[in-house]
């Protein structure tokens, strides 16, 4: 397979998706969840289909900017989302208004999620920190076990996967909230796992390196591991699709980016990581002029 030689095509495909996602994100904004902006989310079971306008009329008395949705199979669940961080007594007032109008018992106040604005910033900060720390940890480990160019190539593939997932979030308007952080970190782990298996093969095949033809070694190694890469993604995808199809709302929000992440991870381990490694190796060859291949 001539994977390394055609790298411009693979890089272009990825770049296109990432650019579309980021441009869309910049133009119309991300669907940022209340965990990140601060705000309140409430869900109330009304037991009957009620026009959205009617619910809005009640909510408007408290916060005219609130977002009102109907959820559930019968569309009988009112979801009220506001960027105002409502305190306990304000929330009680809102529920009381619904309670009186529709004669509801206490247990119909199904869900409340409230985040102060500071919490959102903290989650963002820790998420970014977690990504950087784990990337550095992985880079260190790969450099120790392989060589620094493998580590750098793996990190490039990793950043690629994260960007693809961010693009998917932007294109499909999936809410960016705390499951987003978990999804991104899972993808970090998964994608690197995939990449390492290909790199392991390259490490092994470097023994047969002829005339410093790194591209050939990479191509051979990718061919040898490709059925494993595809089978592993398939089994993982099967389980996540099951989660997406059968799971509840919060799980689905988590499953969708994971599906994108696993596909991106498989793609990058085949089409990004190894070509990048070859580029790094060739740059090293040009710079040092040292023909002795490095076997580690």
């Amino acid at each position, binding site marked *: 397979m001539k994977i390394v030689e055609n790298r411009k095509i693979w890089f272009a495909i990825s770049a296109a998706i990432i650019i579309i996602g980021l441009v869309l994100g910049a133009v119309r904004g991300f669907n940022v969840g209340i965990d990140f902006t601060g705000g309140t989310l409430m869900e109330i079971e009304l037991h009957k289909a009620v026009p959205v306008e009617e619910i809005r009329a009640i909510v408007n008395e408290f916060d005219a900017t609130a977002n009102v949705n109907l959820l559930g199979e019968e569309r009988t669940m009112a979801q009220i989302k506001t960027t105002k961080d409502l305190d*306990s007594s304000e929330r009680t007032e809102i529920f009381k208004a619904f309670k009186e109008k529709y004669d509801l018992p206490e*247990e119909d106040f199904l869900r409340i999620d409230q985040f102060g604005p500071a919490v959102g910033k903290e989650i963002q900060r820790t998420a970014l920190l977690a990504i950087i720390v784990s990337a550095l940890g992985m880079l260190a480990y790969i450099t120790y076990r392989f060589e620094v160019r493998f580590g750098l190539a793996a990190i490039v593939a990793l950043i690629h996967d994260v960007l693809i997932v961010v693009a998917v979030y932007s294109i499909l308007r999936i809410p960016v909230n705390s499951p987003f952080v978990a999804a991104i970190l899972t993808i970090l782990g998964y994608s690197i796992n995939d990449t390492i298996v290909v790199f392991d093969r390259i490490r092994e095949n470097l023994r047969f390196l002829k005339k410093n033809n790194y591209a050939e070694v990479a191509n051979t190694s990718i061919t040898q591991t490709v059925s494993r890469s595809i089978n592993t993604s398939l089994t993982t995808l*099967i389980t996540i699709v099951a989660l997406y199809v059968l799971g509840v709302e919060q799980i689905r929000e988590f499953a969708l980016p994971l599906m994108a992440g696993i596909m991106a991870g498989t793609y990058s381990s085949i089409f990004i990581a190894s070509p990048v490694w070859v580029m790094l190796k060739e740059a090293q060859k040009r710079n040092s002029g040292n023909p002795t291949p490095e076997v580690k």
Partner: protein
Amino acid sequence: MRIKNAIIFILVLAIVGLAAFTAFNGLQVGDRTIRPVKDSIKQGLDLQGGVFVLFEAQTDATGAELDQLMNQTIGVFRRRVDAFGLTEPTIVREGDKRIRVELPGVKNAQEAISMIGKTAQLQFIAADNEEVVVTGNNVKKAEVAFYDNEPNPVVSLEFDVEGSNKFSEATGRLAQLSNQMDKIIYIVLDDQVISAPVVGERIPSGRAQISGKFTVEEASNLASLIRAGALPVNLEEVQTSTVTATLGVNALSKSVKAAQIGILLVLLFMLIYYRLPGLVANIALTIYVLIVLGVYVAVNATLTLPGIAALILSVGMAVDANVIIFERVKEELKTGKTIRASIDSGFKRAFRAIMDSNITTLIAGVVLYQFGTGPIKGFAVMLIIGILASMFTAIVVTKFILKLIVGMDLTKNSKLFGA
């Protein structure tokens, strides 16, 4: 050799089968009962319903002073939460100024939150006009004291400036009334009268004593009740999450169904694609799921919705190690080696790839655990347990069973190994 291997293989199958049955249905041997896994795993708030609130103290205090404030507040929370009679409430300090309160199984979530976070639930009510004189907010101190002229301990109170003025005015008025029943100041906590002292004289200083025929224990109980009426610091709800039990139960049953179907599909895929080794991998996978659930019960981890997602995801990833091994064995077979030799060298070569790839994933899991809170932490725990268990089952269990099968000498047909 063949018979010995066959017996061990059947034994393994029987043990795995029994363990799987126990995990699903529980087991009763004599008077010992093993509960099924679904009853032994601690469920998170998102699955069983309940309230989670993160409070932040509005204070500039630091060091020991802050620690004392926080401990007092946690103490007050405990007393208030105990009033709900819940089985497993969690009240812990998080970071410097935050307190995380988790109340699983609370029925009326909204009421619970306002009850816990209320600054003042304590009221001093004058008997004559039934008006509130002061609240718990005004109480600066409440402690047991002993006086020379009193044989019994008293509860000594100290009010803030505003409280002192109001208390002085009210006691002045009450002291002049003639009817004994009108001279009472009721101390009310959560609509319950905890003490009803009679006012003897005007108390202008802001320092009062409640005396009676208290034992030391009674006096200190009363003092701590009065203290519990007032949080030592203002608290802001920075994060709240409540889920009703119905919503949680629904999430659990749907996710469990998704897990079952997902795992079943993976087992089928492995069997169809890898045939005999696929069957071995499926036995290993069953053991994997049992180990993960067992460890979960053993470390008393809390299962959350993201945790279930991680479990299901980890099943997909656990297959990976097996896939790496089988692909390697297949390659070795293609070079013309015997089945036995191919298994040996296939495992040896796959080992490095499995170790390196899993350890890098483990790094992500550990970082996630370090930085995450709540459900994210639950997810990380599941991920870490999953990676370790999958390495163990693939490297130890799969190899063991594959060798047993080869030892039974059932076939020399390498097609059964996917080659």
